[in-house]
C-alpha cells in the first residue's frame, strides 16, 4: 500500500538518495492485509495477479524522486503495480466459459472511467493521451497501480475494466507475459524509428526493450548504437541486435566517427537523426542533444522528471525532444509477438514474494549493477 504521508516521502527521499531502493523500508510504502477494492461498476472484473513487475516509475515513487507533477494524477492510498499478469476471477456479474490469463493495459482512459462521449484523444485512438485521467467515476490515477479505486499488481487481488484485459496466449509463460506491458511501451517508442542511424541511450529494461522492439518491428537495418553501463547489459544489447554497444562517455565519439561528423566545441556537426533516451536524466538528455543530427528528434522513452538543460543547440539546430508515453491496445498485440520472437522472458531476472518487498525493490533499484534487468513480485503461491 502506498499512502500519502509527507514525512514518509521525505524519509524515502533521503534514504533513496543514500542508496537507491532504500526508500522502500522507510517510505510511504507498506505491506497491508489485503482489502480488495470494490467493483466500480458491475462490468468490472476481479483479478488475481500472478506476476507483477517493478517498473522504473515505481522505484521513483518509492525513493520519493518522482516529480510532483504526478501528485494530482494519482489517488492515495494506492497499491502500486501496473505490469501485471493475472487470472480473472469469475463472479456474479461476469461469467466466462474458461480460465482466462490476462495482462492489463493499465491506462485508465475515458472508456475505463465510464466517460461518454470519450475525449478527443481517445476518439482518435490515442488512449494513452487521454484527457480525462483524473475524472469520471474513478479516483484520479493515470494508470492502474496509481489509482485508489483499482488496486494494483503488487497485491493478491485487484479490479480491472474488461477493456483493459489482453488475453495471454497459452504458449507464453508468466515470465514472458509480465514483459508484455513494458514491451508495449517499447513498441510504442519503436514507431518513431525511421531506419536511419540511431542511438539508444541506456540499456536498462526500457533501452533493451526499445532495441528489441525496433529490431522486431522494422526491416530497416540502419546501424544502432546502444550505450550500456554494465557487462550484462552490454551482452544483452549485443544479443538483441545492437551494432555497437559502448560506454556512455564513448557515445559521442562513436556517433562522430560513424556519421562522419566534425566537432564544434562539444557539439557534433552531424549526428543521429533519431536518439532514444531511455534514461531520462539531465546528463542523458544533454548527451542526446549532443549527438542528435540537426533537425533530428530525441525520443524521451525514459521518464525525465525535473531536469536542467542547455538548450541553445536545440534552438540552433532545430532539434526536438519528444515524449513517448505508454501504449494503445494495438501496441499490446504487437508486444506479444515481440516478446515471443525475441524471447524476452529471459529479461526477468528474479521474482520475490510480496513479503520480501524491501529486498525486491532494492534488487530492482540496483538491477544493472547486480546483473539483472526486470524484477517481479510472484503471487502465484498465494
Amino acid at each position, binding site marked *: 500500500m502506498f499512502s500519502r504521508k509527507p514525512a514518509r516521502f521525505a524519509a524515502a527521499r533521503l534514504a533513496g538518495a543514500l542508496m537507491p531502493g532504500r526508500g522502500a523500508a522507510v517510505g510511504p510504502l507498506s505491506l497491508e492485509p489485503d482489502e480488495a477494492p470494490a467493483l466500480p461498476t458491475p462490468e468490472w472484473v476481479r483479478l488475481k495477479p500472478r506476476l507483477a513487475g517493478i517498473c522504473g516509475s515505481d522505484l521513483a515513487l518509492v525513493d520519493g524522486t518522482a516529480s510532483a507533477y504526478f501528485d494530482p494524477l494519482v489517488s492515495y492510498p494506492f497499491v502500486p503495480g501496473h505490469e501485471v499478469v493475472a487470472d480473472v476471477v469469475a463472479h456474479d456479474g461476469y461469467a466466462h466459459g474458461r480460465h482466462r490469463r490476462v495482462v492489463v493495459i493499465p491506462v485508465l482512459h475515458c472508456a475505463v472511467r465510464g466517460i461518454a462521449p470519450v475525449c478527443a484523444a481517445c476518439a482518435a485512438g490515442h488512449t494513452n493521451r487521454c484527457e480525462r485521467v483524473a475524472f469520471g467515476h474513478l479516483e484520479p490515477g493515470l494508470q492502474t497501480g496509481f489509482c485508489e479505486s483499482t488496486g494494483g499488481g503488487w497485491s493478491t487481488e485487484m479490479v480491472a475494466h474488461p477493456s483493459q484485459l489482453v488475453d495471454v496466449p497459452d504458449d507464453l509463460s508468466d515470465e514472458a507475459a509480465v514483459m508484455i506491458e513494458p514491451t508495449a511501451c517499447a513498441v510504442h517508442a519503436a514507431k518513431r524509428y525511421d531506419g536511419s542511424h540511431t542511438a539508444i541511450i541506456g540499456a536498462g529494461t526500457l533501452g533493451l526493450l526499445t532495441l528489441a522492439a525496433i529490431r522486431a518491428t522494422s526491416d530497416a537495418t540502419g546501424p544502432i548504437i546502444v550505450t550500456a553501463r554494465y557487462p550484462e547489459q552490454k551482452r544483452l544489447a549485443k544479443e538483441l541486435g545492437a551494432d*555497437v554497444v*559502448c560506454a556512455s562517455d*564513448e557515445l559521442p*565519439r*562513436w556517433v*562522430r*566517427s560513424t556519421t*562522419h*561528423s*566534425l*566537432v564544434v566545441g562539444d557539439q557534433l556537426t552531424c549526428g543521429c537523426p533519431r536518439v532514444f533516451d531511455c534514461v531520462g536524466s539531465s546528463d542523458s538528455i544533454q548527451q542526446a542533444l549532443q549527438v542528435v543530427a540537426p533537425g533530428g528528434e530525441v525520443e524521451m522513452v525514459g521518464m525525465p522528471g525535473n531536469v536542467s538543460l542547455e538548450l541553445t543547440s536545440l534552438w540552433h539546430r532545430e532539434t526536438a525532444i519528444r515524449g513517448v508515453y505508454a501504449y494503445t491496445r494495438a501496441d499490446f498485440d504487437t508486444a506479444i509477438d515481440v516478446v515471443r520472437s525475441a524471447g524476452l522472458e529471459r529479461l526477468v531476472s528474479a521474482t520475490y514474494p510480496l513479503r520480501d518487498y524491501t529486498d525486491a525493490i532494492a534488487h530492482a533499484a540496483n538491477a544493472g549493477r547486480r546483473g539483472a534487468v526486470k524484477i517481479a513480485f510472484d503471487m502465484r503461491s498465494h
Partner: protein
Amino acid sequence: MPRPGFVLEVDRSTPPSLFWRGENFSLEKLPAGRSRVIYPPEPLPAIKDIDGAIRNALLNPIDQDPLPSLLFPGMKLTICFDDVSLPLPKMRRPDTRQRVIEAVLDMAADAGVEDVHLIAALGLHRRMHEYELRHALGDRIYDAFHPRGMLTQHDAEDPDNLAVIGETPHGEVLEINKRAADSDLVVYVNINSVPMDGGWKSITTGLASYRCLSAHHNGHTLQNTRSLSGHREHSALHQSIWRLGKVLRDHGPKLFQIETTLNTDMFPEQFSFIATREWEWSARERATYLATTKALKRTPIKLARKIFHGMEGPHQMTSIQAGETSAVHEITLEHVYRQQLVPVEGQTDILTMGIPFVCPYNPDGVMNPILVMCMGLGYLFNMYRNKPLVREGGVIIMTHPTYRDFNPVHHPSYIDFFEQVLPDTTDPVVMGQKWEKQFAEDEWFRHLYRTGNAYHGVHPFYAWYWGAHGQQWAGKVIIVGGDPATVRRLGFTPATTMDDAFEIASDVVGRAPTITHLHVPALLVADVS
C-alpha cells in the same frame, strides 16, 4: 673512459633492478641464477668543439661536394629537420638542429641564397607547437623565418603541396612535399637515436604524403620488419624505403643529408640513478630514488607528467656527418652501434622491460595504452640485432600503469581506435583491412592533423603496427601494474606484481624460465648470438 654495456648474471647478492613505471619507478627483485640484466653502454665522450665539427662536416662531406659549392644566388634551398619526436627527453638548449641549421644558413647567406625554406619533416606526426619549434630551432631562426612564412610544417594531406617524384618497380609511388621536390637543394638535418631512423627514411617518411606512406607503413610490412636495427635484410620496411630512396636519388631534387648522433646521457643530473647500475648507487642516489618514487606516488598524475615532460637531457653530440644519404647513414649507424650495441649470448624465455613516461609519439603528452604497446613491443622489443632477445613463443613482461588516459589534442584518433577498433580486433592485418581506411579518410581527423596539433587519423594504426612483429613473436604479454580492463583490451594480461607476472608466465614458459631484463633507457641494441 665510458664502460661498454654488459650482461649481468643475477645472483643472490644482486640488488633489485630498476624498472620504469610510466611516471614513476620501481625496484624489482629478479630470481637469482636464471636472470640477467642487460646494461647499456655508458655515454660516449662528446665532441668538444661542436660548432667546429659541424663546419668541418659541411665543408668536407662524404661522396658529395662541399656545401658552399652547392649554393648559388637565385637558388631554391629547402632545409628540413626532424620533428619533436627526437630526441627524448628534449635536449638542453641549444638543440643540435639549431646549431646545424644556423651553420647551413651562414653558408647560404655567404653564397647569396635568398629563397630559403624550412620544413619540419613531420610525416604523419602532429604539428609542433610554437614553443617546440622555438626549442628545436632557437628563437633567432624562428623569429626570422616563421613570420615570413618561410618556416612551415609538412602536411601529408595537402593536395596542393605534394608532388610525385616517381614510382618503384614494386609500384610504390614516391610523393613528397612540393617545395622540397621543386628545390635546387634539399638539406636534411637529422638526429639519430635509434638505428632505424635516418638515411632515406628521413625524407621518404618525413616529407611523404599519406598515400606514399601507406605503401610501407602497414600491418603486413611491419610484421615482416624484424628488428629496427636498420638492417635492410630483416626489415621489409627498410627495403621499401630504400627502393623509394633510389627513386628519390634518381629523379628527385639534389640532396644534402646531415646526420648527427647523440650519446646516451639522457637525463638531468638529479636523476642520475636512472643510468647508474644499482650496486653503484651512492647514498645520495638511493635517497633520491626513495624521495622521487615516494613523492611521485603522491603526486597527481598531471603534475607528474608535467615534471617528467619538462625534463631536459644533456644529449651530447658524438658525431656529425654530411653528404650523400646512403654513405652518411652507414657512418651514422657505426656511431649509433658504437654507443648502443651490447653483445648478448642466446635468447631468453621471459623478457622484462620498464616502460617510461614517453615514447617518440607523445612528447609533452600522455603515454596512452596504445603507445605503451608500441613502446614495448614496437621499440624496446625490436632493439636487437640478429634475433630477438626473447625466444619465439616466450613471454614479455612490461611495467607501466597503463591508465586509460589520452591527450585529446594530440591523440584524438587514438581514443576512437581504443574504443572502436581494439574491442573488435587486435590483429594488425585484420584491423588494417577493416578499419584503417575509415580512420585515414576521416574528415575530422584530417582537419585536426592539418590545422591542430593532432597525429594523423591513421597514426594509431601505425603505432600498433610497430608492435606487430613483437605481438606475433611473443606467446604472452603481461603488464605489471596496469589497469586490468585497459590491459585486457590491448590483448595482454594484467598482473599486480612482478611475482604474479612470473607466476602467470609459468603457464607458457614453465616454472624455471630464464629471464632477461632490458635496463633501459638509456637506449641499447642487443646483439643476440
